[in-house]
């Protein structure tokens, strides 16, 4: 009973913060900076204490899996209509002869339930604790860092959405619940990148982050629905077998695992900025330092790796899939290592340094390791948060140091100088400086053709409309000038 209460508190505390800040916004209730910070700290602290209680309980009782079922959020009764029977009959009869029982079973699958289930296990509890610790630290840091900032309140509103998304994703017991958290993290990330929204650059970068996330989310949703269809349930227990993480055994075939796993890998690549989506990570550094630190340096960027760990039983079914995971990690690692060396600003350099570690974590997952990537995630997230938070003051310290020395600090020589010719070095430098041309490739070969097709269609439509209306097509312009609505 106490564990159930603690479990509910873990989920409720970030939700309550979002509710308080959201309602205050809606009803225009002014909150002081200190109150907002206190609410944020209370939310993180309560969630953290509740998570630690569950961890203590699990360790004391030697339990690896504590489910928390909050019931069905949506449940549609398993009513079979004549239409369903007819449809099932027609579909089945078209392909093979079957018995009456099989038809009835197919018709009976016309039900739907969306259960709110959370799971505390060896993967989710460390991730949730890490999320609460880092969010709490960043909440306290932002209280001073963003003092008197115009968007102070807005920052904490997005922060609360992010924290809720992270906790839901970490503890999700069903793939649909994981998707909910995944989407919340995506929204808050995009809005935080565009936090300084009176300049176009952060906004453009925010839109790019959102676009990548939407595409990756579409892949995630297809994978989730495919898994749902294959296993008949969105519950991770049904999807990944009864064993506790990481010991589950998925019940789908190798080919099915390859299909679903590829989609999930695509989704993870989007969220963790793996190649070819790496372009959004340095752009995300347009946001305020606290959000860059905790979201893109520590938590959000690891969510893709977390997804791969969560569905690790699916990966284990297909060696090809594991090979794809390792290959993607390897390519990203090489790319990020090159790009990190030529960045001109500290936040971008740190973002690529993060990406190197994330890709190593992905390689570890592809190689079949489970606990090492988890430990790697936690260690890396904490170190990177510290580095990013320290970055602005570190630059000031360097500046003071150089002023005291009266000269620039000594430059560290790259080992590549001994191995590569100046021409090759120049080429590598150009490649790294252009960030592997990843953004250009996506822009030129995906976005531009798409935009051109629809712009052409738009022009054709306007011509057609003008022809039909028998006017010169200037009416819209006239309206616009008068502001007529």
């Amino acid at each position, binding site marked *: 009973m106490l564990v159930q209460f603690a479990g509910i508190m873990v989920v409720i505390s970030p939700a309550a913060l979002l509710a308080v800040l959201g309602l205050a916004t809606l009803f225009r209730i002014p909150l002081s900076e200190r109150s907002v910070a206190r609410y944020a700290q209370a939310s993180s602290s309560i969630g953290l204490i509740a998570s630690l209680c569950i961890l203590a309980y699990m360790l004391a009782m030697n339990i690896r899996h504590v489910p928390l079922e909050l019931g069905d959020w949506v449940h549609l009764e398993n009513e079979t209509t*004549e239409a369903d029977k007819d449809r099932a009959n027609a579909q089945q009869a078209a392909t093979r002869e079957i018995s009456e029982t099989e038809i009835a079973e197919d018709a009976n699958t*016309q039900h739907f339930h969306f259960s709110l289930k959370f799971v505390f296990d060896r993967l989710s509890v460390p991730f949730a604790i890490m999320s609460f610790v880092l969010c709490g630290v960043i909440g306290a840091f932002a209280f001073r860092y963003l003092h008197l900032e115009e968007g102070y309140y807005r920052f904490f509103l997005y922060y609360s959405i992010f924290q809720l998304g992270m906790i839901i994703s970490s503890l999700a017991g069903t793939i649909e619940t994981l998707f909910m958290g995944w989407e*919340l993290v995506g929204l808050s990330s995009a809005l935080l990148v*565009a936090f300084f929204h*009176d300049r176009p650059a952060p906004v453009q970068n925010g839109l790019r982050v959102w676009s990548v996330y939407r595409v990756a989310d579409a892949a995630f949703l297809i994978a989730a*629905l495919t898994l749902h269809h294959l296993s008949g349930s969105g519950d991770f227990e049904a999807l990944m077998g009864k064993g506790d993480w990481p010991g589950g055994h998925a019940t789908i075939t190798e080919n099915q695992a390859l299909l679903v796993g590829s989609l999930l890998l695509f989704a993870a690549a989007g969220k963790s900025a793996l190649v070819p989506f790496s372009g959004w990570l340095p752009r995300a550094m347009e946001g305020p330092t606290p959000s860059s630190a905790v979201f893109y340096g520590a938590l959000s960027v690891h969510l893709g790796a977390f997804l791969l760990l969560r569905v690790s039983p699916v990966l284990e079914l297909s060696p090809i899939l594991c090979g794809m995971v390792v290959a993607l990690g390897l390519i990203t690692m090489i790319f990020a290592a090159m790009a990190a060396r030529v960045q001109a600003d500290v936040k971008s350099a740190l973002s690529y340094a993060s990406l190197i570690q994330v890709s190593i974590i992905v390689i570890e997952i592809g190689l079949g390791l489970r606990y090492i990537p988890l430990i790697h995630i936690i260690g890396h997230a904490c170190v990177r948060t510290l580095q990013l938070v320290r970055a602005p003051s570190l630059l000031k310290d360097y500046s003071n140091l150089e002023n005291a020395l009266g000269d620039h600090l000594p430059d560290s020589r790259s080992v590549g100088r001994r191995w590569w010719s100046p021409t090759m070095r120049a080429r590598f430098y150009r490649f790294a400086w252009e960030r592997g041309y990843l953004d250009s490739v996506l822009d030129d070969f995906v976005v531009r053709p798409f935009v051109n097709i629809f712009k052409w269609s*738009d022009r054709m439509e306007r011509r057609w409309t003008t022809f039909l209306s028998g006017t010169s097509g200037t009416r819209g312009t006239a309206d616009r000038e008068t502001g007529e609505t």
Partner: protein
Amino acid sequence: MIPELHFPWLEFSILVPLIGAIACAILPNQQAAQRVAIVVSSLTLLFAVGEWYDFSTMNTFQAHDHWDLIQRIFRHDYFVIDELSAPLLPLSALLYLMTIVSTLRTKLGRFSFGMTLISESIVLATLSCHSPWMIITLLSLACVPPWIELRRRGASTRIFSLHMGLFIALLVLGWSLIDDSAGHQSAELLPAALLTIAVLLRAGVVPVHCWMTDLFEHASFGTALLFVAPMTGAYAVMHLVLPFGPEWAMRSIAVLSLTTAVYAAGMATVQKEARRFFCYLFLSHASLVLSGLEIVSTIGLTGALCVWISVCISLGGFGLTLRSVEARIGRISLDRYHGMYEHTPTLAGLFLLTGLASIGFPGTLGFVGMELLIEGAVGVFPFVGLAVLMAATLNGIAIMRAYFRIFTGRRFQTTAILRSRPSERFAVLVLTFLVLGGGLWPQPGVASRHHAALHLLERRMNPQLVVEPDDTLPEQHTESQEEKPDA
């Protein structure tokens, strides 16, 4: 025998706006007309909500008014609601109320409250009606107020007249042929084709959608929004085509509407004008609903019906927000940044919230509906599910792009006070409550749509199970009616 409601909710909700329209016409100024329109549309909403509540407590699929005056006069029970239309009535009434309430004083001269109330009455009558000829008449009448407004504004009415004229002609011709064919299978090809083309025209399916962009560009935003948002085209599909339509007709509607959903979503991402952007966004969502209505599975159909409701509320709210911003800065170009956030943070929040709800973002009204629709589509035709997902993804990108262009990117310098007015804040509160309330507590709404979907599928598979309104009057049974294919 169709059960009776406990009060003539339907007739009152249709009659009250008509009386209000007359009052608005004789009032000396627009401010007084707006006050009357607010009172009248509030009353209408009250009657529509009463109808919905009364109906939901009756546990029946169909019901008609108590003391049915229309039935007594015309000897025909024209107004009957069922599980499909019961929530659509308060929803449409709410949209009208919100539009009237959120019309700013500076724009009173450009928006006709009388015409709006007449169109409200027509829409509510359409959604309460099951009789095919009556639906055709009302759908035709609904085209008149926007046409008059286009004329008054000096805009070309050719595109609108051409499309709507063709729509009405095809509907009349198609249904006349059905009446004449008296159920002969060989004779159904032509009328079914005519009716299918007619409803595709009204729904704005590509390539016959240009009237919609034209209407949004040249009519007032409020009028254009109210003409398309209640989705009477989809209602016409449900009552004029689906009950008897051959398989190929339904397939054609599904394929064309799915193509429209993806095409319009793509078009929404490249638009340079906010009105055209909204038009394509709405078209994409309405087409998703239309394609979902053809899915012959309870889950898919439930999803489509849920998305119908969520799209009405969320895109209705989205359109009203856009209209409010337009009322402040004129026509909005999406080619540049406007930076309105600082002046209208409430509207910015509602814009984002309703936009996200329309694409089925978690925690909002559209989430479960979209999940059901995609799951149902994947279950029947996997590629349909992929297309739905593609449309939702593109719509998501288009909405965020519009948000950033309108509310961010620079500081909007002005000496005028542009903050939202109390009437707008009221609309924001109501819509936020509906979007989030329906999203966080979706079970009642989804269960109601599921129940409706079950009955609709039963009716589609076994048309003879349906109790038609005419059955309430034994003397109305004639030989020709019994031979009708939809009887």
